[in-house]
């Protein structure tokens, strides 16, 4: 009986140590879910850092970042993975949520890896949207053309 009790104490001590180790692990990693409606890029994967372009400015997200919400601007999202590699994706729009427990949800309307972009097609899109703005008559059409210009400018910038 005494033997089992001391054995239990030994195990509980080790369990407490394991808990402590788990605590540190949480603070130094964050789990990213980066998805678009038709594809999943990261699903609860632990990463080191994420750079996002948002309407309130581009910022980098590190573990234990203060919780916040932001709306994405067309631009490039850079993900720094745990093994040191970086991946860049172009996003058209969306939202980013950083929660208290260091989970990040990056929901983009469309996201493509930057190396699949074609700079000549992007420049063509920019020229098209500029001519659309010139010929736009209603406010709604003007706003749509301006959005299209913003996206294509960001596309061109991402290709360079």
């Amino acid at each position, binding site marked *: 009986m005494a033997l089992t009790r001391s054995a239990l104490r030994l195990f509980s001590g080790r369990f407490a140590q394991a808990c402590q180790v788990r605590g540190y692990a949480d603070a130094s990693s964050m789990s990213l*879910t980066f*998805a*678009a*409606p*038709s*594809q*999943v890029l990261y*699903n*609860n994967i632990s990463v080191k850092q994420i750079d996002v372009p948002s*309407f*309130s400015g581009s910022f980098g997200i590190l573990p234990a970042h*203060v*919780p*916040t*919400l*932001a*709306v994405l601007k067309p631009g490039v999202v850079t993900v720094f993975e745990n093994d040191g590699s970086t991946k860049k994706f172009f996003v058209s*729009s*969306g*939202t980013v*949520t950083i*929660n*208290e*427990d260091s*989970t990040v*949800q*990056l*929901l983009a*309307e469309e996201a493509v890896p930057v190396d699949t972009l074609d700079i000549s097609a992007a420049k063509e899109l920019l020229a098209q949207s500029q001519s659309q703005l010139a010929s736009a008559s209603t406010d709604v059409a003007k706003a749509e053309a301006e959005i299209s210009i913003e996206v294509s400018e960001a596309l061109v910038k991402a290709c360079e």
Partner: protein
Amino acid sequence: MFSRTAAIIPQCGQQVRGMATLKMISLRLKSVKNIQKITQSMKMVSAAKYTKAERELKLARPYGVGAQEFYKKAEVKDEEGDKGQLIIAVSSDRGLCGAVHSSIGRIVKADIVANPNTKVIIVGDKVRNILQRLYAKNIAMVVTEVGRKPAVFGDAALIAQSIINSGIEFSKGKIVFNAFRTVVSFRTTEMPLYSQSAVANASKLPIYDSLDSDVIQSYTEFSLASLLFYSMKENATSEQSSRMTSMDNASKNAGEMIDKLTMTFNRTRQAVITRELIEIISGAAALETKN
């Protein structure tokens, strides 16, 4: 001889009792066989659509689950106000898919009875037909032409835009749809929807840094579209799998009916032959005895 054929005709009339003439049975048999062909082909079509829908759902699931995370983590609760409840019932236009539409109709009806100050936005004609008779005044908007092609984010964005433009206000909201579980089962689920003021008053919102009403507004609008997209995808998969199983059952039932009808047809055919033989033989016997 002519007198004998004249004698036969009234006896043909007598055969109409019971299961009817050979002609009627064979007509019935032909039509059931056609129905079986149709249900079999419908089953294959929906099997193909189901595989596609399931693939797209797998890709959309992290997106949909991620879109709900914020509301869970920030512990957003329904507003205390009395602006009423908003229900978005997600379904489709096409039938013959089992209990998909009726289960949604049932939940919405129960909700309206419990909470009369409810506005319903219906996606898909079938639920509109279910609700129109008794609850027509609660229907705020109906979206049709749903279900023919797989949903894309643009569709959900369009619906979300119309909801926002219509200026509907609500204190608590939910999306009712059929969540896909397995090929043979789906579950009718509710996803909570929170209004902008509910988000602004969330208990954990102060810990979120640098938020202004613009950001919250854009965020809630985008997440409405995302949640709608996710529920449409789930519902589409449930609908196709349910149609597949019900068409499969229909084909099996048709097959059973064909077996029974074929049996009856053969028996009736043999009975007709036997009757003719009896008449001929009894006629011949009568002639013999006369001689």
